[in-house]
């Protein structure tokens, strides 16, 4: 067959990875690096949009290197993966353009030393692209061990990005970050080892078939171990303390990417764990509900206490992870759909806010609410850029944050257990406190008389303003296109909850089901390999 949507599936991983190699080799040529990075991410975005359309017809499966599943690794692009990929690449591209606007060409008088942070482009581009590849790999993979590899790729590159420049503050924040991520990765790998021991496979589709067959106690233990590992990555309370400590010190674009993406990869993994691998376990769902409530409330109380905008936003990030976990823990189609929509909304809005804060830091020379003031008068455009996503985060109608929350609350009320109602109330309270926190930031930074410390005439670089504006506009687009998008999320949720769509896509003819060993390498397997890659 001449062309097939399966061709698109590896592109979001391969393009950034190849581009990373190229930019590393061409580190002396900053301009070439920039062109390569932007082109690669734009192409990956195009591929993701293609997948978004193609995956609506059903999951697309690619066996990597034509090694047949379950022995080989497969990439699976279903609706959830495709929608996560698309929004991630939109956001990665905006952040890359923003960082290009922030970097000042060598030789010129350098405002970067006082305003915001200069980004060493030579290291930044390859690392950023590898991060993109790791994220794409995590979203696409159909193999638990490959998911671990995806995590390691993105965590290693994120550790490099977090400690760019190696200042004292970043090394301190970076140590906390890397220790926590190492622990979570080790837990994840232990979980994989135990799952492999219990089932003899790490292929997610095959796991979905085999896990129901094992002892329920062992199964719950495995599930909890996986959730523990993903919970650290997703920053669910009480595993969230590392996040507000480590994120705010990084350069603004890096914080924006981390806030938008890294925790969401954790949430995505929890979603897969709960819907595909361990679908029916009400006890664990209830535990998740309680944790979601605590994450929401304690996160937002932390945000209220902060007086640094970056830290305030980091705490709201923790808090709003609770909403997504709430949706997943409801374990219904509508709940999962609302969680998917909320993830998409939150990636765009949280990234936009961190980019705006980068601009605020550039304009006002600080992110401390004690030092800022009067920015609405000094930079009205910046005020608008902050105001829209801030209200969106708080869930003011008719913005996408409101729609996502309505979906969650409606489903919480429909489920109607006592715990669900507590969560509904908690969500509303958290939403109001979020409004309080962002309004406080707004009052301190944008209203008041202009602080004398703020110079009255600092032009904002256009290269930074446009990508931020684009991302804010993307957030509004999520509101305008909420109908089709929510419909897509509902179809995604339905397909992921029915328990067979994913598995049928990976094993179309029912072959290899129920085989006890993972060492099925023989004539039949090589026959499969010969025709591999033709699925979808």
């Amino acid at each position, binding site marked *: 067959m001449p062309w097939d949507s399966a061709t698109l599936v590896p592109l979001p991983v391969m393009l950034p990875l190849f581009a990373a190699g190229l930019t590393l080799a061409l580190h002396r040529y900053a301009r070439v690096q920039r062109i390569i990075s932007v082109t690669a991410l734009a192409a990956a975005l195009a591929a993701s949009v293609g997948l978004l359309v193609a995956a609506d017809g059903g999951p697309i499966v690619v066996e990597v290197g034509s090694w047949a599943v379950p*022995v080989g690794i497969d990439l699976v692009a279903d609706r959830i993966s495709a929608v996560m990929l698309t929004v991630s690449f939109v956001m990665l591209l905006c952040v890359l353009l923003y960082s290009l606007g922030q970097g000042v060409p060598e030789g010129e008088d350098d405002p970067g030393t006082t305003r915001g942070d200069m980004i060493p482009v030579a290291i930044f581009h390859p690392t950023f692209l590898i991060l993109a590849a790791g994220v794409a790999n995590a979203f696409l993979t159909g193999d638990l*061990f490959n998911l671990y*590899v995806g995590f*390691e790729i993105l965590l*290693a590159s994120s*550790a*490099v990005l977090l*400690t760019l420049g*190696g200042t*004292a*503050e970043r*090394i*301190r924040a*970076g*140590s*906390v970050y*890397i*220790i926590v991520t*190492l*622990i979570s990765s*080790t837990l994840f*790998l*232990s979980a*994989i*080892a*135990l799952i*492999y*021991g*219990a*089932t*003899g496979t*790490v292929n997610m589709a095959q796991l979905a078939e*085999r896990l129901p*067959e*094992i002892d329920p106690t062992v199964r719950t233990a495995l599930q909890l171990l996986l959730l523990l590992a993903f919970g650290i990555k997703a920053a669910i309370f009480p595993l969230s303390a590392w996040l*507000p*400590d480590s994120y*705010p010190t990084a350069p603004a674009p890096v914080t924006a990417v981390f806030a938008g993406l890294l925790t969401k990869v954790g949430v995505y993994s929890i979603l897969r764990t709960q819907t595909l691998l361990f679908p029916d376990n009400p006890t664990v769902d209830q535990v998740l509900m309680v944790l979601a409530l605590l994450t929401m409330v304690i996160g937002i109380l932390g945000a209220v*206490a*902060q*007086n*640094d905008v970056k*830290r305030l936003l980091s705490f709201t990030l923790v808090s709003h992870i609770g909403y997504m976990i709430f949706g997943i823990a409801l374990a219904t189609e509508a709940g999962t759909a609302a969680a998917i929509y909320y993830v998409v909304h939150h990636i765009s809005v949280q990234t936009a806010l961190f980019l705006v804060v980068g601009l605020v830091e550039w304009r006002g020379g600080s992110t*401390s*609410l*004690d*030092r800022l*003031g009067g920015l609405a008068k000094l930079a009205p455009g910046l005020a608008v850029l902050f105001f829209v996503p801030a209200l969106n985060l708080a869930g003011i109608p008719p913005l996408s944050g409101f729609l996502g929350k309505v979906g969650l609350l409606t489903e919480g009320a429909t489920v109607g257990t006592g715990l669900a109602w507590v969560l509904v109330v908690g969500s509303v309270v958290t939403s109001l406190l979020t409004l309080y926190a962002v309004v*406080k930031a707004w009052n*301190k930074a944008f209203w*008041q*008389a202009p*602080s*004398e*410390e703020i110079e009255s005439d600092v032009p904002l670089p256009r290269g930074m303003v446009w990508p931020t504006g684009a991302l804010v506009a993307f957030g509004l687009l999520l509101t305008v296109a909420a109908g089709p998008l929510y419909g897509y999320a509902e179809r995604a949720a339905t397909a992921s909850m029915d328990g067979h769509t994913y598995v049928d896509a990976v094993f179309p003819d029912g072959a290899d089901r129920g085989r*006890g060993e*993972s*060492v099925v*390498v*023989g004539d039949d397997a090589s026959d499969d390999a010969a025709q591999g890659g033709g699925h979808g």
Partner: protein
Amino acid sequence: MIVLENTPPAILVLAIGVLFGTGVYLLLERPLTRVLLGFVLIGNGVNLMLLVMGGRSGASPIIGNAPDGVRMSDPLAQAMVLTSIVITLALTAFVLAMAYRSWQLHGHDEVADDVEDRRVARHAALNAPAFEDADDTEPDQTLDEEAADVYDDVDDSDADGHRADGHKELP
């Protein structure tokens, strides 16, 4: 029901336990190098666990190489261990570099507390607001006194003159 064909040797299980236990102990230390050693120990424990989960060893897993009737080793577990070793190596190198940088900067490599968190905690201990009230002309005023002042000074047009001293450096 899928069951491991044989129980793993007790000595290996014990070794995994010891590696995890000592690793966790070291993770709880402050210096980054000790934390790193803890991570390396746990990492080796996990690798050993993966290997044990692959089941009993056998002939080399190449088709046609093993004599008929002889069971082959599980190559997948070994492939996973190999990947994991490579990843551990890279991350170890990175953490070592970070410990060295920390030593360059501070003369030690201890992981410090969250500075901002300490600051907020100190404010809480003093029962002071984490935010400084920009409208507050006199410190230690109650809200009622402040309101009275504002009432007295409605005509005072110099409303933002106090903003410059609106922040102070906290230790």
